[in-house]
């Protein structure tokens, strides 16, 4: 996993609520056996017209809006558990998704891949959408070590929460497997006494 510590970037506004993972990456693109290349299909059905041409109204097709930060509406990533949604966002070039609320599975998948889901209040989110509308070139800094999100130009300096363990993972590029493998002995010991309600037998 790639380390992330400080991200300085403009943000891409995507102010839609309840965006499900079927919108982030439609199911028909999941028929692959690798983790790569999903960025080209990110938000496919919103990004392209039925004839395959670019939908000029979609934010990713608007050259004014670029950057590593996706500014997303409330309850981002609901629905299917497909990790491909996190892979697609990363592959496209996003490192951070800012929203006022994330769906659980997406939140976990993002962290497991080094994509930071940064939760802010609904009020801050609205302010950000408004300010970006006025100035799409606003520069934001996300500092994972200090757990702070700033944009001096509009007077924003917000702290954000992150699980202390996940913070270490992101800053060092560790993934959960390394930690769990170090638990192997504990797991084997647990199994000796674990009362599986009934061992499944064929």
């Amino acid at each position: 996993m790639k380390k992330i510590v400080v991200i300085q970037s403009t943000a891409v506004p995507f102010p839609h609520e309840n965006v499900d993972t079927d919108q982030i990456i439609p199911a028909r693109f999941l028929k692959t056996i690798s983790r790569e290349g999903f960025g080209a299909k990110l938000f496919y059905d919103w990004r392209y017209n039925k004839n395959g041409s670019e939908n000029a109204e979609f934010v990713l097709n608007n050259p004014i809006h670029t950057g590593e930060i996706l500014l997303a509406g409330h309850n981002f990533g609901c629905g299917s558990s497909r990790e491909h949604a996190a892979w697609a966002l990363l592959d496209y070039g996003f490192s951070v998704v800012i929203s006022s609320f994330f769906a659980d599975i997406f939140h976990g998948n993002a962290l497991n891949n080094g994509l930071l889901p940064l939760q802010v209040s609904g009020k801050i989110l609205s302010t950000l959408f408004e300010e970006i509308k006025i100035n799409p070139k606003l520069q934001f800094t996300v500092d994972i070590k200090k757990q702070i999100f700033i944009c001096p130009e509009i007077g924003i300096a917000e702290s954000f929460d992150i699980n202390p363990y996940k913070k270490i993972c992101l800053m060092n590029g560790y993934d959960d497997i390394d930690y769990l493998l170090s638990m192997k002995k504990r797991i084997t010991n647990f199994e000796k006494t674990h009362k599986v309600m009934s061992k499944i037998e064929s």
Partner: protein
Amino acid sequence: MKAKTLFDKIWDNHVVYQKKEYPAVLYIDTHLIHEVTSPQAFTALKKRGISLFRKEQTFATADHNVPTYDQHLPIKELLSRKQVDMLIQNCKENHIKLFGLGHPFQGIVHVIGPELGITQPGTTIVCGDSHTSTHGAFGSIAFGIGTSEIEQVFATQTILQNKPKTMKIEINGKLEKGVCAKDIILYIILHIGVGGATGHFVEYTGSTIHSLSMEERMTICNMSIEMGARGGLIAPDKTTFTYIKGREFAPKGKKWDSAIKKWKKLISDKDAQYDKTVEFNAKDISPMITYGTNPGMGIAITGNIPQNASQKALSYMNLTKGQKMIGQKINYVFIGSCTNSRIEDLRVVAKAVKGRRKCPSVTAFIVPGSKQVEQQAIKEGLDRIFKNAGFELRQPGCSACIAMNEDKIPSGKYCVSTSNRNFEGRQGPGSRTFLASPLTAAVAALTGKITDPRKYI
């Protein structure tokens, strides 16, 4: 001792290690896998040079992108075939039990787990699919995971998880005739909202819930994720035990007796505290239908689309605010998915369409949840009833719920679907989905429009 919820009891019984401020190392009893979300986990495992830790606790099936006809022939769609072949190869290399195409136990992962007795009370069950919550109907902690987490379970039979909060949803009273389990859950989601249970694990309780069959309980737990819940469970009772008894992987003989003794203790303590509690009355629930592009956008079938409905959703659906849903023309009816493709669902449909004929302009197809459901339907003669009514009975798989195979609803067409998601493009690019119960879907196929099913029973 502090009173505990059923969720707390099962959770605590599975925590291998908990370091302060870290997520818990949670032991997983049963791991279910399928062709779409597992290949990358197998590849990553291989790359690390790690072998599968507990193969006997892992079960596989091919369901998401398998065709629903001519399953005896090689899969025509090359990418789908490659994924299914990859699953076969990975299972072979890792000695995992696979119920693949052609196997008498093949089917949708959340249908076959319970059907084979693999799903058992008090256990932890994960699968790379958000509808894993289905298995909670048996009093288990079951939830969907991502591919990185599949890899964790492959490598260690554990997963790193933060403990969710608990939420109790209690429903009491008697349901009106014509109201199905699907209507209950669509009603709950309407009231709680699509993100209203995020961060929570739900326990469904109350007299209405405990009067339901296992199939009905599975329909309810299945859609817990649609309100954001990590999962949903129901304390096991006599109905649960009767369902499990004698199934392929269920405990037998003395082991059965001791299992029952343990399972009977799987209830929340009387004074257990939940982080959130919501109550509903069964008599307030009518047959439901969705009008929009998430499962929370539902109404009683006799209702009008609300004035505050999302304009974006209505534009996609080509519907208008205030419009009545009754009488809305439809083009397709899909009976299937891990929500409603079990034998009981097929019986409900058969009863409604017996001796009747579908509307000529409607394409109606039924995709059974598993080979066993398919065979049972044939044994009971339901296939003939469907045929005479103009409904096509296909072969098992996820089919038009996720539209990864050939079963797609064409752009702009309306489909009454017994599946779980009406997201934009879910049933194929441009498809428009109305979620409903199997009864409501069957009746819509007969009339060609959305119809109050109570008039047909």
